[in-house]
């Protein structure tokens, strides 16, 4: 969106959504090298463009995170920080967390939250929960 690149994209690029002051990225499935580079470009461009102070990265649909993706996430967080935006990682699955810790990749500099609602709350943005009480029914 932001780069107006001429070269054809080999895979679907990851959309960076602007939720009124917060940027939201959802990574689904495998992340090839060029998509990772594209993501970093898109995120930094979007932060510069919107002046956003927060970036939420949702990885709840990933059932595997390798060291490459972990590094990409750390780099995205680090470059966002340079642009004064804080990154919060959301929705990591148990198996992924265990694997990362076993690999020694504890992502020390990165903030985490359980749900997007929680992450938004850390930026002072309230997203109201809809199904909290009736959770058993779902």
């Amino acid at each position, binding site marked *: 969106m932001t780069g107006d690149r001429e070269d054809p994209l080999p895979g679907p690029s990851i959309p960076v959504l602007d939720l009124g002051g917060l940027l939201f990225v959802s990574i689904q499935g495998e992340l090839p090298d060029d998509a990772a580079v594209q993501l970093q470009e898109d995120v930094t461009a979007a932060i510069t463009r919107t002046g956003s102070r927060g970036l939420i990265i949702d990885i709840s649909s990933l059932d595997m995170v390798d060291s490459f993706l972990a590094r990409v996430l750390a780099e995205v967080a680090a470059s966002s920080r340079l642009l004064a935006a804080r990154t919060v990682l959301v*929705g990591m699955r148990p198996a992924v967390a*265990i694997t990362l810790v076993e690999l020694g990749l504890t992502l020390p500099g990165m903030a*985490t939250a*359980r749900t997007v609602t929680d*992450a938004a709350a850390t930026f002072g943005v309230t997203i109201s*929960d809809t199904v909290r009480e009736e959770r058993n029914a779902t």
Partner: protein
Amino acid sequence: MTDGPSDPARAGTEAVAGLLRRRGEQVAQRWADLPLFQAVFTVTRDEAVEACHAVVDSLASVAESGRLEDLEAPGFQPIRQQLAAMTSSRARSGLSMSQVDREVGALRDAALDLLEAETDELGVEDTCEARIHLVTLFATLRVAVIETMLQENQEIILRQRQQLLEMATPVIKLWDRLVAVPLIGMLDSARSQIVMENLLEAIVEHKATIAILDITGVPTVDSLVAQHLMKTVASARLMGAECVISGIRPAIAQTIVQLGLDLSTVTTRATLADALQWALGRDDGRGQQAVRGQS
């Protein structure tokens, strides 16, 4: 059979087999009055006699096969099943292994008495020979019984170990979005792995933002246990939940310091109550839980 009765050992085992076949009824009647059978078959005596008969027949077939000292002899298979049920019921009523062994040993005397009574027909020499084989047969029977009991105990231990693994790691929801794991007993690698998995699953299920690891019931903390705890804390943090370790007794605090373990990145509290207070004070309303980054 090919050796014929000329082989004395063969003749002896055949005499034993013959005796057990001929006198089976009498042996069974006597055994039925022994405490081993009497205590198990309490309903009717006929039942006991029938069970005794089965054992006598099986012993006779072992004797016929000539493999008196072979636990794998075909005749021992039904005996094992029969006796396993009986000895386990005896063991359950509080008898030690040696007491059960003595009861099984008592079976021998009934058979020896009957052999004694046949001395006139068999002749002194053959009786002696048969006696030796009979004693051997019952010695093997005792080994078979002990082996069966040991096997059964082993199975119980395995089953209980599995149960312990499953049951000793409950994750409790203490409050809205607050879960706790009371850890009891030594933490080894297998257990801490299960604790970690259960805790992380519970964090997902309850959307927990805070997890309390209570180690009040953990007797000692060494570097390995500490490492397991740190891993659990790190995994929970990656998933967006903060961990508190509570229940650190004074002795354990000293041990941790003396071992040079660095728990500075982990929030710790002395008691579960303190941890709960910390957690509730931290959570200033629903969904307003602050997520701490590097700050």
